[in-house]
């Protein structure tokens, strides 16, 4: 009971605090991880603003900043002149998603595993006590590490990694829904309007 009062005076329980901090940090992480989406957002923002004012496109700055209790978008948009209600030109086309490279099917030859593997009787020593086991391990494990051979081919890098490193092809973002459990099935292709940002916790 004393514990209860102590916590009352201490304020918010740490679990709730953790959840709130995570919500913000993940929002921030997602923005950092999707420069293509940020770029699209920036373009769309400029398109809308440009309908009303003429902007200095080369000096526009759009960033996201995580603060103590929120993540905010900061846009610094230098304005050159005011338009008279004339519509701006059509928005810039989105770059299409590059097709995912399929994993090369160059199979190294691998002898098939037959049914008999499962039906043969099993062979055997007994497991050892933990400390002794680890003792024995120390001997085998400290074998001199071989310098690793030729680095793995990077050509077959799947789309995900190429995009993260080069920021080139846009990646599908994860559609976020409030409070529904995902089965993790394939996300809708970008541009279908299904994407929402963040995972704002209900009050």
């Amino acid at each position, binding site marked *: 009971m004393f514990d209860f009062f102590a916590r009352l005076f201490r304020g918010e329980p*740490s*679990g709730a*605090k*953790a959840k709130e*901090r995570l919500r*913000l*940090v993940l929002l*921030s*992480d997602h923005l*950092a*991880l999707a*420069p293509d989406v940020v770029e699209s957002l920036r373009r769309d923002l400029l398109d809308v603003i440009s309908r009303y004012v003429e902007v200095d496109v080369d000096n526009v700055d759009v960033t996201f*900043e*995580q*603060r*103590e209790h929120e993540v905010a978008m*900061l846009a610094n948009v230098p304005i050159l002149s005011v338009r008279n209600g004339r519509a701006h030109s059509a928005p810039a086309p989105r770059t299409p998603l590059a097709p995912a490279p399929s994993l090369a099917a160059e199979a190294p030859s691998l002898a098939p595993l037959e049914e008999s593997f499962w039906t043969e009787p099993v062979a055997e020593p007994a497991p050892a006590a*933990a*400390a002794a*086991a*680890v*003792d024995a*391990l*120390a001997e085998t*494990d*400290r074998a001199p*590490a071989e310098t690793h051979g030729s680095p793995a081919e990077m050509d077959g890098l799947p789309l995900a*990694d190429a995009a*993260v*490193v080069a920021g080139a092809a846009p990646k599908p973002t994860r559609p976020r829904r409030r409070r529904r459990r995902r089965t993790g099935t394939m996300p809708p292709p970008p541009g279908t309007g299904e994407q929402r940002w963040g995972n704002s916790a209900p009050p």
Partner: protein
Amino acid sequence: MREFASEVPAAPPQEHGRGRSIVITSGKGGVGKTTTTANLGAALAARGARVVMIDADVGLRNLDIVLGLESRVRYHLLDVLEERVELDDALVRDKRSELLFLLAAAQAREKEDVDTAQMTALVERLRERFDYVLIDSPAGIEVGFRNAIAGADEALIVCMPEVSSVRDADRVVGLLPPAMRPQLIVNRVRPHLVRKGKMLSVDDVNAILRLPLLGVIVDEPAVITATNRGEPVALDASSQTGSAFRAIAARLAGEDVAAPAPREAGVLAKLGALFRGRR
């Protein structure tokens, strides 16, 4: 936006010379490297040392969130290494201490992006300005680990009293340059389980690793709540874990600190013997 502009200490008076560069590593993930780095940093700074902590876990940064500094990070390690920003712009000052700074990992990059030579040069630069440069290594023994040890003069091995962790720690020790003189921290000990023979004792662990023992930390729920809040448990006077970190900081600084008075008989009582004549 310079709201949280770090006031990085100017070059220190030369009485101490170059600071110490220490990598905190383990092989096994989840044994407490990041928690140890954060708390050791906080405890050393509380003793008046100038400390900078580098999060070398590119892509999976967590040192910032453990310290509650996640909202203050603007730039990261790769921004500095690739010379997009000045070092001082990237260093985040701790909320509580003026002497404690963080250089965060990049979240949207990969460990392979770090250039080892540049990392070494950065650590050297930081040693000119700080008494301690603590490097939080990622799990594993691949490129992330190799970059984390680049530029480090000393190593702390964090190990849990658990078979996989001991095995991985042993592997890591085998990969460190011997000149690093690694020291051991045994973390997340549960004395009641050790007494029942259901958990390895500190002796069991060090019989395999055979390293100088820097500290033993007992598992406590306070660590979880402290991380939830983003506050280092080393600053909590009532926490047993906190006092263990403070003792480790003191030993690192050269003090001959006895093990804390045992609250549980058995494994902790033996610690006194382990620490006596340590050096």
